[in-house]
């Protein structure tokens, strides 16, 4: 080697390994150069000390004797070269000239390509050498020289590189900081402009720059530079952002917000490139910044992401603690809440444990809707009945419950701590209402109660239910104590998705709590309301009506059965029942229990009529007493018939209370009540209306028009019968039903008008046995061949309902007619309870008034056609006027007859009535239409006119004979006859209407609302008499 390279250039280095590496060096050879080199690392432990020194010497000699002289030589050479080409005025000029020509030749986007030997490259090398040898002045000058060149050539990358070097050189020179920073920024911006291809360069440049700033304690600026370094590469920018955040932390004063923000940003970037552990590390740092912050979105975000990431790492416990932080806040939007909750539940499920989350008020319990329902002497058939206001029941039970018990409120008693009242079980209803923005969809909540004092022998209920978002449901939880003692309801506990346990304590926030029952004294604490004294069990009846329809049509008449069930060991007795709406529901007779419906309603020949009415009087008191001998034995049930009649359309609430007493129980609570509540919807079916008009030609006969409208949408009713209630009225059809309604059924929307003749059937003076069968008070409207029996409206259920109808439809006053219209519905599609059997509908119309006309009715009877020989004598005709007083008061009637109009100074009344002018309008003298004029006009052959003219013409040809005015007194509901006589002088047709009746009702002692006329005047109605000349 020496021979080849020459002795001066070669040196020998002997390296011998020491034995066993025992040689210890005091310090590492690098310790002077690298402060952070660890002393524990035994560098060169196998080298002997002198060998080390030899190595050191060799390297120093190499660098000082060979490398540095070489570089210096190189610099000299290059400097000479550069100064020869570029320095001096001549060269500058030439350079410009030359460069111009060059510009045209190469114009690529990256600037011209510089070969190593080109002068620019040489200058750059010169600068680098100078920089390495710490000849910064030279370096700067050479760098500057080429930087302008590169700039002119648009060789941006090289330009940026040179700028970077200038910046560094300035920094090393430690003068003109501005300059250095400017250069670095220039270089950095240039790199950034060049795009992602020089990303690395940009990063390097940025890092240089940051180091520069850091050494000058401009850490804040360094952070911004870090932030600017961030590029598209996620991991890269994540690291940079983290560094930036540390810069903010280190800056003085520490900018904690920025620190946190950048940590979060970098965490997000880490997450995006799947460096979850790094992400968590940054977020954990950020959490320490944001702990206790009120910037809610930030907090949510941080905790949520940490929780999520921990969960993805499988560290569920930590995840849960973070997730818990964000759950209870109320400010979040619905979507984010749902997201949080879903993730939370997901995580919790993964942990496989159940957590008690007191913070999470989910589902929200509407505490004001909390009701504790217990039963003392009041028992309820259904939960719905329990939610009815106490006042409703109280008013219903008023006259049934002994007053001693009705007055004393058991809560009052209990507050005195006298355990007198008993309860068997209570039901607490936790009204669970969920505020709209808390609920996720399709989450299932499992709820169970927990109660306090009595630990054993309690039966608690668990309810499983699921809540949709924004849904509110009512949950009923029951507690059934098994032993005697004191029961306190503490709160409600629930499990969310079978993992998260929530607890709601009623005591803590029971400000608005209301107890459903009882008047509460103000001094009561709410806790007293939740405390119960449990006593031994008592009989408790359970009752229900199995076939009560929920939806029916108005008029529906049904036979129902009330079933009372006694499941305890003691019999109960002395049952009473009260129904809130007797118009709809009525207790029947026990004999009806097993009869077939609608057959029992049919008319029987030997049924006793008066029984129903007497019963009805009793029923009006609304309390139904079960027979004394009825008692419900232990573990048996009692059935009792009920009649149901849907009286009016609408939504009907039926309240039924059954009162019963315990036998041989020595407790203070001797009685209990069972409360039942049913809601039913009654749809309008048939609209029946009647109109009565007096028959003019008959006394006490009326024309009855029945209008029936089928208001249902689809049902088809078969009409069955029309009955008038009472025994004084006789109904008959004017024309057969076939001609009005061939099909006998009313289809939906169909209107039917039917005319009947109604005759008042006067009871014979010997009124003992007016056989009702002879009275045609019922009219069959069904098909003629139908042999079905008519329904008896006077027997129990129909008559009872009718009485109630009368009560409701108006005041009961005599002289009015009530009708019952019965139809059948064959299709049982309302609630398909009895599809094979026709549903029976009865419509009761009461108080069809007869009093639209005057209380006095009269009827003129006499011969209609008379043959008389006028040559012999004027003809006298005897007429008979029958006057009926249909009112309740005695009346005096004054019958006046007027002379025919033209005979003498005619009475104004008659003329007025004939000309149809109201009397009041004519004052003093007025022109009367001349009879002659009328005669002239009425020469045409109109029959009516003729009769009129004839009557006018012949008017003077008859006069009233006999007394011109008759006065008589009529007793109530009496009839009198007044003889009348006329004298006719010539043959013709006469209208005997020129008379008037003045009637005056004597005032009755108590004016019972008969506010109609007490006096009046009636004009006579036409009565035509034909008198012929007999030969």
């Amino acid at each position, binding site marked *: 080697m020496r021979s080849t390279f020459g002795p001066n250039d070669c040196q020998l280095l002997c390296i011998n390994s020491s034995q066993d590496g025992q040689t210890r060096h005091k310090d590492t050879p690098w310790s002077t150069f690298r402060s952070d080199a660890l002393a524990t690392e035994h560098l060169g432990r196998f080298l002997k000390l002198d060998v080390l020194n030899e190595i050191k010497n060799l390297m120093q000699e190499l660098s000082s004797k060979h490398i540095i002289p070489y570089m210096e030589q190189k610099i000299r050479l290059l400097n000479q070269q550069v100064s020869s080409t570029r320095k001096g005025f001549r060269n500058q000029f030439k350079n410009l000239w030359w460069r111009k020509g060059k510009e045209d030749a190469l114009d690529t986007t990256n600037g011209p390509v510089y070969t190593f030997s080109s002068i620019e490259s040489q200058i750059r090398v010169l600068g680098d050498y100078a920089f390495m040898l710490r000849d910064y002045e030279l370096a700067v000058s050479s760098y500057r020289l080429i930087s302008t060149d590169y700039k002119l050539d648009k060789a941006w990358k090289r330009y940026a590189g040179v700028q970077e070097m200038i910046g560094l050189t300035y920094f090393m020179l430690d003068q003109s900081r501005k300059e250095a920073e400017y250069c670095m920024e220039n270089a950095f911006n240039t790199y950034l402009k060049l795009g992602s291809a020089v990303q690395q360069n940009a990063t390097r440049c940025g890092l240089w720059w940051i180091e520069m700033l850091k050494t000058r304690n401009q850490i804040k600026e360094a952070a911004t530079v870090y932030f600017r370094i961030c590029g598209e590469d996620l991991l890269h920018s994540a690291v940079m952002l983290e560094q930036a955040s540390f810069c903010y932390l280190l800056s003085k004063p520490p900018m904690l917000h920025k620190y946190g923000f950048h940590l*979060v940003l970098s965490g997000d970037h880490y997450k995006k490139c799947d460096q979850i552990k790094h992400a968590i590390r940054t977020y954990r740092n950020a959490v320490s910044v944001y702990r206790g912050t009120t*910037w809610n979105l*930030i907090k949510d975000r941080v905790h949520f992401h940490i929780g999520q990431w921990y969960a993805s790492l499988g560290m569920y416990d930590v995840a849960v603690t973070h997730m818990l932080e964000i759950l209870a806040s109320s400010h979040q939007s619905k979507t*984010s809440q749902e997201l949080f909750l879903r993730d939370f539940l997901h995580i919790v499920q993964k942990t496989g444990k159940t957590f008690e989350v007191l913070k999470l008020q989910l589902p929200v319990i509407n505490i004001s809707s909390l009701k504790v329902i217990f039963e003392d002497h009041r028992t309820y058939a259904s939960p719905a009945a329990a939610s009815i206001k106490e006042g409703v029941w109280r008013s219903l039970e008023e006259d049934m419950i002994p007053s001693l018990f009705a007055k004393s409120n058991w809560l009052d008693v209990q507050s005195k701590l006298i355990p007198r009242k008993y309860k068997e079980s209570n039901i607490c209803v936790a009204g669970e209402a969920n505020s709209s923005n808390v609920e996720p969809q399709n989450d299932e909540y499992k709820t169970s109660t927990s109660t306090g004092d009595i630990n054993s022998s309690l039966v608690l209920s668990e309810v499983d239910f699921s809540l949709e978002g924004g849904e509110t449901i009512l949950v009923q939880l029951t507690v059934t104590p098994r032993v005697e003692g004191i029961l306190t309801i503490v709160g409600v506990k629930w499990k969310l998705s079978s993992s998260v346990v929530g607890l709601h304590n009623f005591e803590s926030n029971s400000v608005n709590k209301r107890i459903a029952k009882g008047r509460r004294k103000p001094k009561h604490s709410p806790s007293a309301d939740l405390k119960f004294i449990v006593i031994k069990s008592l009989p408790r009846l359970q009752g229900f009506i199995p076939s009560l329809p929920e939806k029916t049509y108005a008029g529906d008449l049904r036979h129902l059965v009330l079933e009372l069930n006694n499941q305890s060991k003691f019999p109960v007795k002395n049952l009473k029942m009260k129904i809130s709406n007797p118009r709809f529901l009525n207790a029947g007779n026990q004999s009806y229990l097993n009869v077939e419906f609608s057959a029992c309603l049919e008319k029987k020949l030997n049924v006793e009529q008066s029984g129903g009415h007497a019963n009805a009087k009793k029923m009006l008191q609304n309390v139904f007493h079960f027979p004394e001998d009825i008692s419900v034995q232990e573990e048996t049930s009692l059935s009792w018939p009920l009649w149901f009649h849907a009286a009016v359309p609408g939504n009907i609430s039926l309240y039924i209370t059954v009162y019963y007493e315990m036998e041989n129980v020595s407790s203070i609570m001797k009685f209990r009540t069972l409360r039942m509540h049913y809601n039913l919807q009654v749809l309008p079916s048939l609209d029946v209306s009647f109109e009565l008009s007096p028959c003019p030609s008959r006394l006490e006969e009326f024309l009855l028009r029945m209008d029936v409208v089928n208001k249902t949408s689809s049902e088809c009713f078969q009409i069955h019968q029309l009955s008038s209630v009472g025994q004084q009225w006789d109904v008959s059809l004017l024309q057969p039903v076939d001609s009005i309604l061939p099909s006998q059924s009313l289809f939906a929307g169909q209107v039917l008008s039917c005319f009947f003749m109604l005759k008042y059937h006067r009871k014979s003076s010997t009124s003992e046995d007016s056989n009702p069968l002879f009275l045609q008070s019922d009219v069959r409207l069904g098909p003629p061949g139908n042999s079905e029996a008519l329904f008896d409206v006077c027997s129990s259920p129909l008559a009872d309902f009718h009485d109630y109808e009368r009560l409701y439809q108006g005041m009961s006053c005599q002289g009015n007619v009530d009708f019952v219209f019965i139809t059948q519905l064959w299709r049982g599609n309302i609630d398909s309870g009895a599809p094979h059997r026709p549903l029976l509908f009865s419509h009761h119309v009461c108080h069809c008034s007869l009093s639209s006309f005057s209380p006095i009715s009269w009827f003129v009877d006499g011969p209609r056609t008379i043959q008389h020989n006028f040559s012999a004598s004027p003809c006298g005709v005897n007429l008979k006027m029958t006057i009926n007083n249909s009112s309740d008061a005695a009346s005096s009637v004054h019958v006046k007859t007027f002379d025919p109009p033209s005979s003498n100074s005619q009475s104004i009344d008659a003329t007025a009535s004939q000309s149809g002018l109201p009397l009041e309008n004519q004052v003093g003298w007025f022109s009367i239409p001349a009879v002659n004029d009328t005669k002239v006009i009425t020469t045409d052959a109109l029959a009516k006119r003729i009769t009129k003219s004839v009557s006018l013409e012949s008017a003077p040809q008859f006069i009233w004979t006999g007394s011109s005015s008759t006065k008589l007194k009529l007793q109530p509901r009496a009839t009198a006859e007044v003889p009348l006589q006329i004298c006719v002088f010539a043959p013709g047709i006469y209208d005997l209407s020129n008379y008037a009746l003045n009637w005056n009702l004597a005032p009755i002692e108590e004016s019972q609302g008969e506010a109609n006329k007490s006096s009046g005047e009636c004009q006579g109605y036409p009565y035509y008499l034909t008198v012929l000349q007999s030969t």
Partner: protein
Amino acid sequence: MTTTACFIIVSRNDIPIYEAEVGSAAKREDAAQLPQFILQAALDIVQDLAWTTSAMFLKAIDKFNDLVVSVYVTADHIRFMLLLDSRSDDGIKSFFQEVHELYIKSLLNPLYLPGSRITS
């Protein structure tokens, strides 16, 4: 990013007492809290700047990407911070002055406790 604006009133203790977000941008779920982050981070700079100038309106003091934070500091160091993606100093300044008036009005409300959340 489309036009968006986030306005927050920050109390003396760095607690936001009023937040309003205006913008037509259909926000992504993960971008909802970005304005808060930016504005909160800008608090540091406000801290520095607020004592260097006597003007209440601090102009645009910070920016993140293309979002600019403008701050107005009242006499009792309540900070109105507005995050905008476009800058028009005059408009922002008049906006801040208007808000300042409104804020003073709400301060005059005897029921309003200074530093508590403003609800309207």
